[in-house]
């Protein structure tokens, strides 16, 4: 079967290549992990019969049973806290947080146990658990359903965090996270879960790229854009638009949020001299602050303009009728590119 005969078309089940959305890719990634290791258990609110409110766990309870896919009582500290115990017992729990805004009741367990047990016991206890967090906005939702809390977890030493921006990463990252012996938060850009235009062929027999590596998606010399999760698509669109105006932008998908892999960013900035970091999270004391702080240090003599950030504002997420103004968009990023180029 060659790519030319079936471009962007569902491929037969027997093949190792499937054309998937991000949501379906995570679903299949979970399934693959569960098949591989009976210690992998999925737990969360409504993850069973319903398959989760986003259907990411669809069909898993049916096939793996109620002891491997747990519809838990409604309490996030309970989900995380019992998952810790299961991890101590030797399981590999995969917790679903229904929406990012509801991770906070579980923050204490993440901060005080998940992040610290390994260091506390100097490695005697491993906490190989995954916390799946649908995040980001642009879906016209009510409060608490559109936020981007990833910076809290980047600041928290002891946990790691990654985020996919495409189906291939989605499929592999979840599995790599599950089989890592470290606790990892997987931030899933919910707006992109079922976006048909992002469907891509995923080769389930391929060799995945390393989990904690960023990736240059497009090369350019005028300036560098760095995004992650939901803003990667935006960055690519900006690069497209800038190219029409003759400015070739380099686009980097961060992929790993903590620890970040900034070497490719440094390298890129040494070439372009300009960097714009794009995120849906408020800017104050955030991941983009960290990017700016480190790039100005590592690339001090290469920067021809300060690192600029295009982010949400430092306000609570507004009523979603306003989210188009709140979130970075093509115009705002282009505006930043212009400002950078004109500095």
């Amino acid at each position, binding site marked *: 079967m060659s790519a030319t005969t079936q471009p962007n078309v569902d491929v037969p089940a027997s093949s190792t290549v499937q054309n998937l959305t991000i949501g379906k890719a995570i679903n299949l990634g979970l399934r693959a992990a569960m098949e591989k290791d009976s210690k992998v258990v999925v737990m969360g609110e409504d993850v069973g019969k319903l398959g989760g409110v986003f259907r990411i766990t669809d069909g898993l309870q049916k096939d793996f049973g109620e002891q491997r896919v747990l519809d838990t009582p409604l*309490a996030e500290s309970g989900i995380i806290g019992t998952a810790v115990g299961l991890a101590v017992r030797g399981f590999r729990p995969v917790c679903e947080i229904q929406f990012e805004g*509801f991770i906070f009741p579980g923050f204490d367990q993440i901060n005080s146990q998940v992040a610290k047990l390994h260091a506390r016991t100097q490695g005697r206890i491993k906490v190989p658990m995954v916390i799946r967090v649908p995040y980001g906005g642009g879906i016209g939702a009510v409060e608490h359903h559109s936020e981007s809390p990833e910076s809290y977890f980047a600041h928290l030493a002891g946990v790691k965090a990654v985020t996919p921006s495409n189906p291939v990463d989605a499929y592999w990252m979840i599995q790599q996270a599950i089989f890592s012996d470290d606790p990892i938060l997987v931030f899933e850009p919910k707006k992109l879960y079922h976006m048909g235009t992002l469907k891509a062929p995923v080769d389930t027999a391929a060799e995945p790229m390393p989990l904690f590596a960023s990736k240059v998606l497009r090369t350019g010399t005028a300036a560098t854009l760095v995004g992650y999760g939901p803003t990667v698509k935006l960055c690519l669109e900006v690069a497209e638009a800038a190219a029409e105006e003759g400015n070739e932008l380099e686009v980097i998908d961060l992929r790993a949020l903590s620890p970040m892999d900034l070497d490719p960013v440094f390298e890129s900035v040494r070439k372009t001299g300009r960097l714009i970091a794009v995120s849906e999270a408020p800017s104050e004391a955030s991941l983009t602050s960290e990017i700016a702080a480190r790039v100005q240090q590592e690339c001090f003599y290469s920067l021809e303009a300060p690192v600029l950030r295009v982010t949400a504002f430092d306000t609570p997420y507004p009523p979603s009728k306003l989210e188009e*103004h709140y979130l970075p968009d093509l115009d705002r990023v282009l505006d930043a590119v212009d400002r950078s180029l004109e500095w």
Partner: protein
Amino acid sequence: MSDMSSAEQWTHPEEGDLPPATAAKPTKDQVIAGLRATSEGGADLTQLLTPEGERVPSQIFDPYVADIDFEALRGLYKDMVIVRRADREANAMQRQGQLGIWVPLLGQEAAQIGSGRALRPNDMAFPSYREHGVGYARGVSFKEMLGLFRCTSMGEWDYQAHGFHPYTIVIGNQVLNATGYAMGQKFDGKVGDDDGEATIVYFGDGATSQGDVHEGFVWAAVYDAPVVFFCQNNQWAISEPTERQSRLPLYQRARGYGFPGIRVDGNDVLGCLAVTRWALEACRHGNGPVLIEAFTYRMDAHTTTDDPTRYRLSDEVETWKLKDPIERVRVYLTRNGGADASFFEQVEAEADEFAADLREFVFTMEDPPPERIFDNVYAEPSAALDKQREEFLAYLGGFEGGVH
């Protein structure tokens, strides 16, 4: 008390009375007895009006609805019909893209109107996100409540004038907030006699698992806070049935804290009114808190984005239709000469009008201006945020006459 014998033995072991630890595990059915296994709510259910419209006398609770004559009952009926009609209209408008989401209350009209009408002006109600009926009873305009679901606002009604706090979406949070408010009522010296103030807080069956709800119970018990914990057990937390949250009927949770817990037929508006008044009275007099479990049913989806066919059988919904909260009042009024056909017609007409008005309003609702993003983040200025606001406005200004 035979229905709870095993739990009672467990929790108060006495010589000879204790099951050997090796006793056969109670069956799942036993464990969930009184939960969904008894869709009737079990022997513990307080009910003043049966699904068939029969009035059940109650020595304790009748005094609490002694003033509910036919006129008052017609009022409750009308409330429920209007609230249901508004709910259906909002649901329809969501389907038509006019609302971002809708959280239906269908089936829970009696629980909400009965409890909402039990409140006095100075009382305060803390809703979760489904209590449009309570809001209505508190005099909040449905229009104001729709902003949240239209995604133009988050609920900006005058919470103090109405005694109706903004909606809370994070499950359980409001239970602590309400308990604190009730503590404040007490600290303000507004508790202790018949004129006392009280607080009521709404939450679901699923919410009972949250740590915040527990802590609310602990605080209220320790501070004798005048707060009624009103749990609408609508049998489902999205796709999870109540047995995912508890072995025992939820009203019994109160036992462990040392305050009263009671289960009322949540589809019985009279029962809900009476029991809530009873509980509020305890609070006003300084004998709070009280837990009420209103045993009801979520007749529609969890929200308009939910698909309940994935997790429950239509059989169950059909059974519950027979317990409709509005129908039983209609039957009772009709059978006892409390209302005639023209009354019912008139209520229908009023409800239609209410809905039409709502619809018109929604279709003309304007989006808030972009700069609202920055409004009222703080009560006092923040220089840093003011700067972001200025830059944003300058940026927006740059598009003037442009493509934006």
